[in-house]
Every structure is written in C-alpha cells, then in structure tokens.
C-alpha cells in the first residue's frame, strides 16, 4: 500500500491540457501539406508519379486528396521545386469528402460542429463503438491512447463503449475488408438512430495502402457508408483524432 502511494506521487498528474494548450508535437510530424503551385514547372508530373496511392491529381497543378494520402512525403522528395511541403499542423479533420481535397491557394476547410439539434443530443455525451475493419491496427493504437490518463477522453464526455446498442457513433478503422463487411454493416444497423459515423485513417476513408486490393471495399467511401467526420492520416496522430472529435462537438475552441 505504501509503495503504491509513493508511486502515485512519483507518477504525478499527466493529463495534457488540450484544447487549452497544445501538447508539444514531434518536430518531424507530418501534418497538413502546403501546396504552392506557383513553383510548379510546366509539364512536371514528378509528385503524382511517385505517390504510392495516387492521391495527387494534376489539373495541371497538383491537388492532394487527404483522404488517400499516407503522409509519406514521397511527393516532397520527388518535387524539384519545393512546391509540396508538410507542415506541423495537426488539425486535419473534415466533414465532407470534398473538403479533403487540398488545393493550392485555397484554405483547408476544417470540420464544422454538428448542427444545433445534433449537438444538443451528443454534445455532452458521445459514446463511440469502434469497429476495426481490416486495417493494420495502427489507427486503433492511436484511438486507444486517447482513453489513457495522458489524454483522458472521458473529460470531454466522450467514451468508448462495448455494445453498438449503447453507442451514439460508430468509429471505423480499416478499409473494410470483404471478410469484415457483414460484421461492419451489422454493427452499424445495431447502433440506434440518430447515429454518427466517423472514419479514422486513410483506410477507412478510401482504402489507404490497400485501395487497389480486391479483398477490401475501399473504406466507407467504397462501401457506400455515409460519414459524418473524416480524420485523415496513416495513422492520424492522437491529437488529430481528438481535435476532430472536439470539432464535431463544438468543443475545440480553435
């Protein structure tokens, strides 16, 4: 008992103060890309050619689909003029698929809060049922960490629950493999309406690194599951996920 008490003192209080204060992020974190089409050379296709997921469309200047992007920076390495860079900006969540298309000279449209009625339903208490539908368990790692004392998701009224019957929202990770399709749909059906769907990670949005595979459906997009919140990344940083959830509930403060 004495030892437990001493250890409690040693371990101290460790919950970060987000969103009041942003915890320090790793210097090499790859957040929101910055496109500067003014630098693009005529006829250059280097970025699009090196992108492993074909997330870049040239028309003729590059446009990045953050729902497909793995933040691997192959495009940055390929670009001869530095027209694509990655900032440390961790806020990446969006409400629509179209908002995930990043264009040069257009500000990225971050997720807006739910409408007043939905917010009055979910704003103070949002129960999440997580479905892991065929990814690599990476997004799950970064969702899971939000429940630890370092993040304490509960302080925002957000909680991960065991049964879809108790859930307000289904959080999907993974590209939805064919083998997980039935289970994913059943979980969605078992969640009472009105419900929200949150797609976490490139897989759940578009299929991610597996987008060409016949064994999967191409995430919520390919499976035709309507999504209320998209959180891009491979996997997204926990702060990106938390920011997305808080934005949806109108609690982000910034």
């Amino acid at each position, binding site marked *: 008992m004495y*030892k437990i008490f001493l250890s409690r003192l040693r371990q101290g209080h460790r919950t970060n103060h987000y969103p009041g204060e942003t915890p320090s992020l790793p210097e*090499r974190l790859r957040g929101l890309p910055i496109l500067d089409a003014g630098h693009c050379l005529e006829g250059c296709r280097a970025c699009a050619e090196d992108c492993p997921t074909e997330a870049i469309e040239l028309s003729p200047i590059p446009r990045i689909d953050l729902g497909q992007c793995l933040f691997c920076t192959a495009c940055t390495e390929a670009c001869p003029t530095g027209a694509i860079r990655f900032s440390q900006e961790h806020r990446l969540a969006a409400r629509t698929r179209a908002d995930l298309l990043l264009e040069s000279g257009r500000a990225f449209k971050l997720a807006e809060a739910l409408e007043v009625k939905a917010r009055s339903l979910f704003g103070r208490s949002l129960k999440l049922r*997580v479905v*892991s539908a065929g990814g690599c368990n990476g997004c*799950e790692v970064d969702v899971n*960490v939000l429940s630890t004392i*370092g993040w304490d998701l509960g302080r925002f009224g957000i909680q991960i629950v065991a049964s879809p019957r108790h859930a307000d929202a289904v959080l999907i990770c993974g*590209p939805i493999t*064919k083998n997980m399709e039935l289970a994913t749909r059943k979980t969605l059906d078992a969640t009472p309406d009105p419900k929200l769907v949150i797609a976490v990670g490139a897989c759940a949005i578009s299929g991610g*690194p597996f987008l060409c595979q016949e064994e999967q459906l191409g995430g919520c997009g390919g499976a035709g599951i309507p999504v209320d919140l998209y959180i891009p990344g491979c996997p997204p940083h926990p702060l990106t996920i938390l920011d997305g959830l808080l934005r949806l509930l109108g609690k982000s403060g910034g």
Partner: protein
Amino acid sequence: MKPFAILANGQALPLAAIPVLEFAKFRRAVIQGVSEDLRLACLCADRSLAGYAVLADEAAHEFRVLRTTFPPVFPSLTPECSQAHLFERELAEQWGLVPEGHPWFKPLRFHPPWSGKDAWQRDAIEPGVMDFYRVEGEAIHEVAVGPVHAGVIEPGHFRFQCHGEQVFHLEIALGYQHRGIERALEGGPYKLTVKMMETAAGDTTIGHAWASALALEALSGTRVPARADWIRAIALELERVANHTGDLGALSGDVGFLPTASYCGRLRGDWLNLTAQLCGSRLGRDLVKPGGTRFDLEPARIADLLLRMEEMARDTANAVELLFATPSVLARFEGIGKLDPHMAKEVGLVGPAARACGRLGDVRIDFPYGPYSDSELPSTVEETGDIAARARVRWAEIQASVAFLRGALDALAELPAGPVSAVCGALAPEHLALGVVEGWRGEVVHLAITNADGRLCRYKVVDPSFHNWTGLAIAMRGEEISDFPLCNKSFNLSYCGFDL
C-alpha cells in the same frame, strides 16, 4: 550432396544453388530437420507450385532452404511435424493443394484461391464458416465470441467448448483482416510495397519494414550504411519497449490493478512518442526503406533521446515493479495459461511466448543482423510457461532493450556523419533471399523470390502470430473461461499480422 542450401539472414542465393528435391524426399528432410530440433520457419509455394521450406537451425546460426514441386495431392507433413499444420492449410487455401491426412483440415483466412479452386472446392466463401470442433455432452456448452469484440481491438472469432466455467477446447478463426498483402506483392516491388510491409502489422511497423528491407537489399546487393543500421535497431527496440510496456499495463488492468494499468498506458504512449522523435510517426512509419533509413539522428537529437529515455525508463521501472511486488496480482498470473516446452516446440512457438516456457531462441542472438552481430543481449528465458512467466519475460526484455538503446545511441553518436541510405537497385533475377527480424512478438520472416525478370514471383511473410495463436488456444485448455482475456493479453497476438 546435401538436400538443402544454407543461407544466412539477409543473404540471397541463386535459385539454381538450391537442389530441387522430389516431394517425398523434401517431406522427409523437413520432418527429419524438425525432429532434430530445427524449427519450420516457413513453408510455401509459388504460382508454379514450386515449394520452399525454411528451417531455422538456431544452434548452427543458419537457415536451411529446401525446394520441391508440390504434387496437387500429397501426404500431409502435419501428422509427423505439427509445425506444418497452418502452412499446409494455407497451401490448400491459396493453391488448392490437398495435404492428405491433415488432421485439422480447414480454411485459414477465408479468401478465394490465387488460381483455380481451393482444396474444399468452395465457390462462395464466408468468413468464419467452417467445421468447428465440438465437444458433445449434456453439460457441455459452446461460447462464441467475435468477430467484433468489446473494445478497441481487431476482429477474430473464438469458439470455446466449455464444461461450466472450464474450457475444454478453444478454436480460433481468423481472416477478417485479410487484405491480400502477399498476393499484392507478386510482380513487385511496387510503389506501395514498403507501405504494405509497414502495415502488415501496424504495431510491428519497424519489424516488418526491416525484415523486408533485409530481403530486398540482399536481392539487390545493397550495402546499408552503418548509421542506418543503428537507427533501425534503435527504432526496433523502442517498438519493443513501447509494446511490452503497454501489455504489462493491459495485464494489470485485466486483474483490476489500476496503478500499473494507468501508468503503463501513459508510458506506452510516451515510448511511442520517442519513435516519433526519430521520424515524426509514433509507429515508425516512413523510417525504414530498402537501402537504409529516411531520417538521420543528429547529435542534439541523440542527446535529447537519451535524456527522455532515462526519465521514461525510471517511470516504467517504477510502474512495473509495483506490479511484481503486489501478491494479489501475482496470484492471478501464476499457474494460469501454462504451456510446457514440449508443446511450445510442437507448435513452433516463437518470441517472448516461447522464451517464457524455457525455449531459447531470439533472432537477434541466433541469426544476428545489422548491429546485433556485435552486441551482447542477455537471454530472457523463464521456465514456468504461465502468464507470470510471459509478464516476467516482457519486463526483462524492456530492461535489456533500454540497456541496448543506451549503447546504441552512444555508438551512433560516435559514428562519423554520413549518408543514411544507399540506392537499392534492381533485384537479381531467379534468386531467393531471407530477411528475418526479432520483432517484439518474435520472429518476423520475409522470404522473397524473384523471377527471370528480377520481379518478385513469390513474397512470403510469416508474422510471429502465425505460429503463436495456436499456442494461445492450447494454453487455454483446462482453464476457466473468465481467464481468457488475461491469457489473451499475455500473448497479445496480431490479427492483421496473421491475416495479411
């Protein structure tokens, strides 16, 4: 002439140097090898049904590679060599081969065959639909769990045959995470190859990426700069420490001992944050690439890492020692979920789970790669084979990894500045290469074979979980079903690593 070729870790061989055995001879040689205490690390076939077996000879520090052509129907190896049981089910599912006399002949991952029909002539394939083993009797009941579980975990289906609380038998059906990774690698390497390797099992990003890099570098004859080797090893050990710390926390959470559960939960995140200092990603994404690494560690970053690591190592020791000093926790760990060394050998158990039942074996020691050739790692063997032993092995490995990290960061600081990657060029045609890494769950095997054009014609991945899920099922025999979550956590196996 020997019926096999000898291969070192991270080495390539021309296919012509591996004798092609008639199947009966191949079968005998594999069974003979395993009976002499070698371990079947890999067994697979390519599109032409050319068969390959890799036997790990830990005592001699080398691998034996055997080659054959599979007949469509062949006498199963499993009755005489149980380590082959899942590999044979895989062959039946991928290529429709029929291992006659296989005692437990069922699908594995529930996907369509790569060509033709599978061994069960299935047309429609439904996940988890197979002939589960059933215990009959009036007082017997069956408990089915999953694929969706009550937590943030991957999908899998578990069937327990119970007598009251007691589990007579557990059967595990996986495949829900099957993304077709091996099939996608055929004809590669492609732009997505490195990503697929990193996401084979996301919590083992470094382990898989390094194993794959070893194989591809061997095939292309690339020499990796020493700096890159050290950086890879630093990342691999950080991955190990983060996961072991998280698992010790999860184990204490499952027995209701909240102090260690909460501290370790936080600490796992902090260890992952150290990996993010290397490359920006907590899981080590985009750090390892064939040829080297994509990031260097400059002196200031090394000094900062050392500082943070020492602080976290102290907090981790404090949290974990609390666990082992609490008798009520140990009472829940001791004597539960036992596996004996004999059974561990039968299933071909690897990694910490095998070391917990007295079996030596660690790729870093037996088949050293990168900087492990010149490093002394302590052996972390325990004898009791129960949950307590698996927890102790994890703790011993955390300490060993921290000691290694101290030395590795110093060694890196002393190396002259220079590049951290070399160009990994074209792959040699008609060669076979092996990349094997000790991931935090155990042996990660990547076997790469090229065709006449220097493209990959077969790329086989064996995650440690491939072997170890059977270990978990057997460890549950005779136990209370309520101990399953605890026993499961003590192994903490990968679903996606198995499913690929």
